[in-house]
């Protein structure tokens, strides 16, 4: 299936997902242009993570459809996965391995340079180069988040999905995320970011949407989102 290069980075239509009898996401539709950034806000349990996990193909929608990077979410899961990187609540790391070994594992699956110099450069971007050979189980929550971010960057994806990227980070970490978002935007990467930091998120994104109990409650320019959410 050939992707449409001019298509939206993400085009979701009527996405629904339930866990058991509870609907976590109901009829969510939106469009995100290539190279744009979308901020997703909402209370805890409003469906933000579910939406991002759906778009990353970690879970399947019960109803509705979506195209990510021009590929259908249901029909071309592998193609979607090749073009999407997800920074999840779970860090996707092996606790027993070092930071460098974890990146090596991912790099080998991605067919990328798994050599020490290349991966150290990546770890420098997230300020973890000095802990490259330490086991992940000795890392703090913030350091795990940084490593997860390095893994997300390693994927070199066209669409990046960030679930609470500022969570567990210190103030320098906040600035690091902002800088990385800038770099990604300049590269033409589309970004979807779920966050509770409304002002910060609004400053980094073009568009915003608010989820409430799994439903789309508001959508519009990101700059107006903090007022809308309030």
């Amino acid at each position: 299936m050939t992707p449409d290069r001019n298509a939206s980075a993400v085009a979701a239509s009527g996405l629904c997902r339930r866990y058991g009898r509870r609907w976590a996401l109901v009829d969510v539709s939106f469009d995100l242009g290539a190279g744009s950034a979308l901020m997703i806000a909402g209370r805890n349990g409003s469906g933000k993570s579910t939406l991002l996990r759906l778009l990353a193909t970690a879970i399947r929608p019960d109803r509705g459809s979506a195209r990510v990077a021009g590929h259908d979410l249901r029909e071309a899961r592998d193609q979607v996965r090749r073009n999407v990187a997800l920074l999840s609540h779970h860090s996707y790391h092996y606790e027993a391995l070092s930071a460098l070994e974890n990146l090596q594992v991912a790099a080998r699956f991605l067919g990328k340079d798994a050599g020490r110099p290349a991966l150290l450069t990546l770890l420098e971007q997230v300020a973890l180069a000095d802990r490259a050979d330490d086991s992940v189980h000795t890392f703090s929550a913030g350091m795990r988040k940084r490593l997860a971010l390095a893994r997300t960057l390693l994927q070199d994806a066209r669409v990046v999905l960030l679930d609470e990227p500022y969570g567990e980070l210190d103030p320098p970490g906040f600035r690091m995320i902002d800088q990385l978002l800038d770099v990604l935007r300049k590269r033409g990467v589309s970004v979807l970011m779920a966050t509770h930091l409304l002002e910060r998120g609004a400053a980094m994104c073009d568009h915003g949407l608010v989820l409430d109990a799994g439903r789309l409650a508001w959508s519009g320019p990101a700059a107006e989102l903090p007022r809308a959410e309030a």
Partner: protein
Amino acid sequence: MRDLLAALHKEALLQWRSRAQLLAVFVFGATSLLLFSFAVGPHAELLRENAAGFLWLGLLLASTLTLAETYQAEMEQRALEGLLLLPASPPALYYGKALSNWFQLTLLGSGLVPLMVVLYDANVPRPLALFAVIALGCAGLSAPGTLYAAMTHQARSRQTLLPLLLFPLVVPVLIASVKATSLLMTGDPMGQLRPWMLLLACFDALHWSLCGLLFGRVVED
């Protein structure tokens, strides 16, 4: 092929980090062999005759420990999901893990043989052939064991659930392994070893091909 090599590299790293666990499993298997010898008592002939059965019972019990924990590292931070999203091929992930489990069990089985010789005064006239039987038998345990461990790894009672599901499935493999091992140790005047090993190889081929195909359905949402 790239994914399979990457999966094998990952398994080698994880196995090296958890090498102490293999020692614990070996001690468990060795203790089982020791208990069997105490249960039978000082009947040298009886011990020799049943040595093959005791070896495979010890190996089977020890294998449940290895297999039940095989997805522990994958689940701590949902690393398996992370690999699937890269995307890594599910069959490659399966074969990487199944080969890793096969290697561990074969090492364990080979390590228990000297103990069996000492405890049961068993004869091992053809050690290479015995190694081949252990390798084939462990392949028959590790292929379905890896698949069922994937199915049960999220269950709270996976240590109970895995043997319940796995044991009925591997009965033919165990029978063929015990018979082949027994023939190697007590003599094979009727030339029955070859058919038993062939049967073992057939079960292995069936398990390794089917389980690889089914793994994707087990681990994907």
